[in-house]
């Protein structure tokens, strides 16, 4: 009896198997692509900025600053010291001048793990979008492989990805003309112009202007690690302000959050559609074989067991997957799922029931 059923339904099962495999592949591929794009988006945001910013109050006790550095080094966190100020400056770009408020960030060239002081180094641009180590840095690196050189560190860390605009400017600051090149980065989502330069040169230019902020830029790409370090810092130091890039960039963070929700919704829709397609194809294969099953039944084959097994499988798989999806996305779409799931279950049950009633007529 099993031989007859197997012979009759062999092709149908193969078709269903391949379609199930294909649908499953599509679901996995699309989900993977969406997650990958989400990660890419997150990385493209986070790579252009410091992942955690520690700002401390002016005239901070030098011991405290040392303790912070020590803690970062103990936790193997890559960091740069920075000074930051917002100035009204005049920029010359080609034949055009721009005057406006610009955030100027002076970055410390002392970087962890091995500190090597290149006092007068600037951010060095290879082309519009690339930061490259200078000759002297490469030489020092060659002499000591443990040296972490300034421009290379920048290249590796949060300036790694190409900013939307990166060019060289000549700067007129505090009515003093300065003959120096800057890498200028317009951060896509921040709507502000940021200029980066060596911290010592910035301090010299500012001429002891008190209107600036000091602190550390930390480069931690792993969000969990980032959260952990933030907690450690907050636990150990009271007089510092610690913020993650997400907190400093609500616009970017919001985009990621919305994207994340859309991702889950798309995954849910794809999964439900995929499962529905498999079930419909599975049942269609049985409907196609209905005349043959009817002949077998007339000839004396009891098909109840097989039909019930198939139908039980369909109901079980459909309802189980929907319930699993329900629990997976419980936090986000409770209202939608409370409407969709019962509807889906009722539809499947009714379809299966009418299918069974009509099969052997």
């Amino acid at each position, binding site marked *: *009896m099993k*031989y007859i059923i197997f*012979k009759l339904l062999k092709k149908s099962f193969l078709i269903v198997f391949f379609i199930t495999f294909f649908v499953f592949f599509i679901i996995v591929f699309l989900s993977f692509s969406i997650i990958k794009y989400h990660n890419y988006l997150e990385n493209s945001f986070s790579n252009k900025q410091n992942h955690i910013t520690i700002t401390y109050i002016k005239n901070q006790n030098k011991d405290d600053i040392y303790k912070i550095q020590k803690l970062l080094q103990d936790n193997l966190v890559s960091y740069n010291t920075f000074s930051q100020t917002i100035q009204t400056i005049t920029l010359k770009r080609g034949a055009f001048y721009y005057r406006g408020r610009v955030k100027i960030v002076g970055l410390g060239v002392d970087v962890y793990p091995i500190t090597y002081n290149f006092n007068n180094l600037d951010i060095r641009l290879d082309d519009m979008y690339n930061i490259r180590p200078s000759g002297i840095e490469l030489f020092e690196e060659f002499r000591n492989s443990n040296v972490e050189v300034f421009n290379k560190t920048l290249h590796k860390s949060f300036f790694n990805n190409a900013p939307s605009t990166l060019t060289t400017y000549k700067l007129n600051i505090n009515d003093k003309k300065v003959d120096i090149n800057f890498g200028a980065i317009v951060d896509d989502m921040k709507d502000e112009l940021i200029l980066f330069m060596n911290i010592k040169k910035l301090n010299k230019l500012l001429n002891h202007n008190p209107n600036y902020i000091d602190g550390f830029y930390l480069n931690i790409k792993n969000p969990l690690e980032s959260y952990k370090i933030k907690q450690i810092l907050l636990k150990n130091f009271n007089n510092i302000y610690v913020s993650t890039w997400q907190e400093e960039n609500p616009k970017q963070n919001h985009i990621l959050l919305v994207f994340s929700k859309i991702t889950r919704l798309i995954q849910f829709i794809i999964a439900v559609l995929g499962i529905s397609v498999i079930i419909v194809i599975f049942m269609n294969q049985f409907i196609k074989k209905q005349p*043959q099953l009817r*002949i*077998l039944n*007339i*000839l*004396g*084959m009891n098909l109840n067991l097989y039909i019930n097994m198939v139908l039980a499988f369909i109901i079980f798989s459909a309802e189980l997957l929907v319930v699993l999806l329900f629990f997976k996305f419980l936090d986000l779409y409770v209202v939608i799922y409370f409407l969709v799931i019962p509807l889906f279950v009722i539809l499947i049950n009714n379809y299966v029931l009418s299918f069974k009633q009509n099969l052997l007529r």
Partner: protein
Amino acid sequence: MNVISIKRLKKFYNNKLILDIENLNIKQGEIVVILGKSGCGKSTLLNVLATIDSDVSQDSKIEILGKDIFSLTEKEKTEFRRENMGFIFQFHELIPEFNVIENCTIPLILKGYSKTKAEAIVKEKLKEVDIFDFYKKPNELSGGQQQRVSIIRAILHSPKIIFADEPTGNLDPQTTKQVIELLKKHKSKETTLIIVTHDNFVKSAIGDRIFEFKYNKERGIYLI
């Protein structure tokens, strides 16, 4: 001995009475031809007797081989058909995915024969009816060949009753004769054959007893 005993049979379709038969008996070994125009209810009667259609009025009572067929469960009916009945259809109803041998072995395998044994029996029987294309699919055979295969499938497991629904309805006169001869030749003395047809040639060629559905103007229904 009565093989089929219709005490009372009433069947309604869309609230209209389409079958009304009382006290009709068919004996073992008889060849009964049920004759009538299209739509008179003869195929419906056959389906009821073959336990395929049980949608009849509650007071209906039919005994086949001593069993009240309306008291059987679906599973029991299926087993009853398997053990006691053979079927021949107008459109042969061979399973297109199976070849000739596989189609013919179905009733034997359902009865518990091994595949090898069943195939050996089928091959012998097919040779007797001049079918040698054992491994061809039904759609590769002519209408007459398909009907011969269908007949072999119906008789091989020695059923007590064979139901034939318009077995020659789709065949030319020459093939019709061959099929009738085949049925006569291969039907055992103990087997009851019930043929539903609208073909008068079949009636004259094979029938021991004829039940003809005739239109009753007074009641507006075809009656035997």
